[in-house]
């Protein structure tokens, strides 16, 4: 086993451990964790299975194996970023609705008790 293999495997293990910690602490929702776990799994897989990359490049018809990694991962990252934009747009919409509803409720409450204008 070459040195770089050992290094990637250790880093991946630390990474998976960190994701697990984030989930148990409730800082990361499981649905986002799936993507990160999958990515790490792929990395671990290829660090054990060194011939796999060459094989994959041949299957996809890529001349230089590292190019396959860059292409695949840049594509994945772009898709994931798009997904995050969708998530953030959705939460922005929810925040708008909530803020509006709170403003209306505050006004309703004020009308109901007929108390001081400035709270």
């Amino acid at each position, binding site marked *: 086993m070459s040195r770089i293999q050992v290094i990637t495997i250790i880093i991946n293990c630390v990474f998976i451990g960190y994701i697990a910690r984030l989930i148990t602490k409730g800082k990361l929702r499981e649905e986002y964790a799936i993507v990160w776990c999958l990515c790490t799994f792929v990395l671990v897989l290829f660090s054990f299975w060194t011939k796999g990359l060459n094989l994959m490049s041949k299957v996809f018809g890529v001349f230089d194996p590292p190019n396959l990694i860059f292409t695949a991962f840049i594509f994945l990252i772009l898709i994931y970023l798009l997904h995050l934009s969708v998530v953030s747009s959705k939460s922005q919409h929810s925040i*708008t609705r909530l*803020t*509006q509803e*709170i*403003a209306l409720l*505050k*006004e309703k409450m004020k009308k109901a008790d007929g108390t001081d204008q*400035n709270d």
Partner: protein
Amino acid sequence: MTKILIIIPCYNEGNSLPLILEQLLHLKLPAHFKMEIAVVNDCSKDDTKWVAGLYPIVLLDLLVNLGIGGAVQTGFLYARENGFDLACQIDGDGQHPPWELIKLLEFYDQTKTNIVIGSRFLDEGGFKSSFARRLGIRYFHWLNKLLTGGNIYDSTSGFRLFDKAGVALAAEKYPDEFPEPASLVLFSKYGLSIKEVPVVMSERIAGISSIRNFKSVYYCIKVTISMLFIFIRKKA
């Protein structure tokens, strides 16, 4: 009796708000109208909330800054919930003289148009804007004609009167940033009638426009995109 809600979206308009509210409260509307005023405080950093609290009005206080679209929509939600027949947006910066509201109401009474827009460009006189802004407005006139088939000159005007159908639609879906031109596409798509009435607008009393120079290119692009997407979006 026709109940009308005046929606005043405010972001840091503490200086100009008292004058507008005074003018509005002293405004004599035709007898069959009953007016109520809602100030929407869009999380202002100045004393807007305190100033608004001094007047006998409805204060809708947003905890998070939503931008003009979200703020005005809060007013529409209030109007829908409380059964108002009409709602009119008047900007908090003093750009829209309250007495011009009567022209919109008269026009509504005669035609029962769903959306009545107070327009700067049908009449001589009043506030003339800069060349770049006029260019932008001409572009939006063209784009609006392309997408709605209507002939609206001042599609960026925020001085607009909505009837019940307009309020219901705007409460449901209203674009959040730079909503005016984009919402016209929405309204025409749902078959609401849109007409313009010439009004005289004044220069803002205080505060700064939400559309500054360096933002205007972004404005054009964003509005174009949102108009196009509202145009091709399926009706829900």
